[in-house]
């Protein structure tokens, strides 16, 4: 395929560009709003405006052939909500979305707040802890499987399965190859849940299976929809929750602002997701030529839409690399945007806001050190962060 337009042989999946992706994104943005990645033979959409427009044009930037780099992964993903275009997409999303919108989630806000307070009180009693294993991982992993009606057996594998899934969105590199057994294990497990109808009666998961069966969806699609509900809700939220502690630890004056004005919490959580976007982006298949400013991405190409780069675009944000809870952060694309925008973002916000609310009255200061970032093809997340809290 001939390409005309900017190109780069930068390897966005090299360890150095996973551990610190932002210089690479900057390099690509400087080359153009769309850049041909030689190494992977795909385009990258880099700047905010271009990313936003691509996300809002699903007929050109199609998800129906899959949203991963490799055909093997796309084959496995086929049939779920992420890998579909309107109108099929809207029908599938309608099976998952109603339980997850903020108005439906209000029924759970007291419970979530209660759990948040319990966790925070426990951590304050400890004084020092790890923001990932003792804080960020604890909350989503205990909450979402409960809501879904997931049996207790198998919960200890959920994080492994989720990370494996996100690795496979990228190339068939060592990380991905090592993830394959976990994915096979997960597929077998979820298929078993569906065929045994093993989700708690009255739970969201049980309801999903019932509605899906009423619509004659296949067991395979039902399994994929269950995974749609669960897998994207773990690594992503965990990432944001741990980054939240890191950023407020590094910016104590802004923590003081949160303590003085808790109504700043929603915008602050948006700023965390903007600055340290958990998901770098997903792929799209071009159904027709796309004009991205002065670059044309030809029909038939594949392109990674780099949400995480858009969120740091100096052409859109003032001082994009600064953590600033007073900026207008709501327009970030860390949850995606448009028809595929994260269906669980209401739940992520519910969790994040509840934890910030509990922390705001109880913690005066976070001392953070020894931040270690994890290696995953798609997810940016701390794998450990030592924290000492100073109680209010």
């Amino acid at each position, binding site marked *: 395929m001939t390409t005309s337009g900017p190109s780069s042989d930068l390897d966005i999946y090299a360890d150095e560009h996973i551990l610190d992706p932002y210089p690479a994104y900057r390099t690509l943005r400087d080359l153009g709003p769309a850049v041909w990645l030689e190494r992977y033979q795909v385009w990258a959409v880099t700047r905010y405006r271009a990313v*936003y427009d691509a996300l809002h044009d699903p007929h050109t930037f199609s998800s129906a052939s899959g949203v991963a780099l490799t055909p093997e992964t796309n084959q496995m993903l086929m049939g779920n909500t992420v890998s579909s275009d309107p109108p099929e997409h809207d029908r599938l999303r309608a099976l998952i979305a109603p339980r997850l*919108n*903020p*108005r439906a989630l*209000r029924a759970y806000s007291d419970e979530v707040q209660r759990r948040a307070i319990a966790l925070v009180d426990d951590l304050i009693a400890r004084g020092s802890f790890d923001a990932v294993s003792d804080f960020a991982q604890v909350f989503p992993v205990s909450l979402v499987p409960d809501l879904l009606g997931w049996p207790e057996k198998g919960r200890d594998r959920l994080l492994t399965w989720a990370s494996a899934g996100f690795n496979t969105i990228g190339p068939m590199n060592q990380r991905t190859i090592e993830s394959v057994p976990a994915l096979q294990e997960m597929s077998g497990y979820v298929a078993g849940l569906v065929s045994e109808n093993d989700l708690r009666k009255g739970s969201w998961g049980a309801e999903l299976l019932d509605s899906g069966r009423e619509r004659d969806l296949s067991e395979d699609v039902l399994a994929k929809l269950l995974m749609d509900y669960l897998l994207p809700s773990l690594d992503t939220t965990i990432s944001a929750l741990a980054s939240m502690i890191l950023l407020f630890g590094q910016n104590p004056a802004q923590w003081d602002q949160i303590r003085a004005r808790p109504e700043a919490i929603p*915008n602050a959580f948006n700023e965390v997701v903007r600055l340290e976007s958990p998901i770098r982006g997903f792929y799209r298949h071009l159904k027709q030529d796309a004009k991205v400013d002065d670059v044309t991405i030809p029909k038939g190409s594949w392109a990674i839409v780099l949400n995480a780069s858009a969120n740091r675009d100096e052409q859109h944000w003032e001082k994009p690399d600064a953590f600033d809870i007073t900026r207008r952060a*709501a327009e970030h694309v860390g949850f995606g945007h448009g028809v595929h925008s994260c269906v669980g973002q209401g739940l992520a916000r519910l969790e994040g806001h509840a934890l910030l609310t509990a922390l705001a009255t109880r913690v005066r200061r976070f001392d953070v050190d020894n931040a270690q970032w994890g290696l995953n093809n798609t997810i940016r997340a701390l794998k450990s962060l030592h924290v000492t809290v100073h109680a209010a």
Partner: protein
Amino acid sequence: MKITADLHRCEGHGLCAGTAPEMYDLDDDAVVVVRYDIVPPHLERRAEAGAGVCPVAALRVEA
């Protein structure tokens, strides 16, 4: 300028009202309420900003 709201698409995230409270509100069921049929000229930019931030593209701007 007119703003059209797709009330079926609206999921109640409230980003519109957070960005441009002069133009958007959420009712008791957390569904968007567009305050003006015809957007007053001095609010056009705010109206566009609020419409653009909607994560599910439920708000459309007609110039």
